[in-house]
């Protein structure tokens, strides 16, 4: 194939020299790792996305390029996506009555009302 590129570097490549179809085998782009970044010391590590890498060590290198090249970042974690155990999203109703349990919250205890009532009686 005659390569008519305006770019001298592309022109030097032998593009599609044998005309064969290029097929990537399943798994050739490695495995998926979830990435967690820490914006500053003392903050939580937060999930920011994922990278493809052949090992955890290289996942860290790629994560630094992908998620640490702008803004503040002081630390990164990676973990294989397959190793994350999560609840089924369809089960979110198990948390539905959390907000009803006022006895778990400071706001569930109305101390001032009683104090004021007591003071008012005196």
């Amino acid at each position: 194939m005659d390569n008519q590129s305006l770019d001298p570097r592309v022109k030097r490549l032998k593009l599609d020299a044998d005309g064969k179809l290029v097929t990537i085998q399943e798994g050739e782009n490695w495995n998926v790792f979830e990435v967690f970044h820490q914006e500053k010391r003392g903050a939580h590590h937060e999930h920011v996305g994922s990278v493809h890498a052949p090992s955890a060590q290289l996942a860290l290198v790629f994560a630094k390029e992908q998620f640490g090249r702008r803004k503040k970042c002081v630390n990164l974690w990676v973990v294989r996506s397959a190793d994350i155990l999560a609840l089924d999203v369809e089960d979110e109703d198990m948390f539905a009555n959390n907000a009803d349990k006022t006895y778990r919250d400071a706001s569930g205890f109305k101390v001032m009302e009683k104090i004021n009532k007591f003071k008012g009686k005196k």
Partner: protein
Amino acid sequence: MYGGGYIFDEQSKRPLQTQLEDDPVKLADFERRIAAGEKIEPGDWMPVDYRKQLIRLIEQHAHSEIIGALPEGTWITRAPGFKRKLALIAKVQDEIGHGQLLYNAAETLGKSREMMINDLLNGKSKYSNVFNYPAETWADVTVIGFLIDAAAIVNQVANSKGSYGPYCRALERICYEESFHLKQGHDAFIELATGTALQRSMVQDALNRWWQPIMHFFGPPDKTSVHSEKLMRWKVKMASNDDMRNQFLDSYVPKILELGLTLPDPGLRKDPETGKWLFSDPDWDLFMKVINGGGPCNSERLGVRKWAEENGRWVRKALMDNNQKKSFPVA
């Protein structure tokens, strides 16, 4: 960059059978959640067609980022000056990073990265049409960096308010980085537009050549659009092609004209009554021809992408650990 507003629709030989498979109760609940502004996450139940259309949309967006970096990447060695080279390298790295973010978002829907790249390489999956045109001079790079990025931002800001969580999160990150791209593109464009007579004629020439691809960018007019209504109800598509094109023209035509540059469309003007821009129809037959492989750079772009896959394979293989089991991103 680079998600084009227009997402190429594969010619389907079979009628859509998806609604037959969707449980109507779950579908109603799904639509209620979207209408209420809730996000859909990877493990959620979703209509078959929602999944299919999202994969198509996000995958084509990812391919556009990767292919879109090619015409600019070739200009790194020839960019005028050290600062411009550094900025262009940073931008090209961002675009490749955006491709990675988007591939990951698409993978959460169940299509593997390898499958997506194979579909790109064998022509089954498309990318934004603008990248099938050559960047002939440095002025072309400034027009791409300013106007194509601006057009992409209009589209991506709209899509970032869509219904699918992983895509929205990827787009938020992308839009943040795009603001630098637009600024550096605008800066390079202004430098030529406010420069010598030769520089101005270069940028005018580039504008003349790129205007039609830019008008193509958001896709055919709404009146010819096939299944927009459902996609908009599902918040897969957030704004119509015509609305996005009008928003782009509204923001950027004045910025071009105020520099004393012209646009190669005598019919381009704002209708004072409707506030909408009027323009001569770009050649939509040409648009379809270029999408289907007939543009000046289609074979070069895919050729370079194939070359990279083939010549990078030994590196990927050398690093491969065969004991690793393949998995998909969780969010």
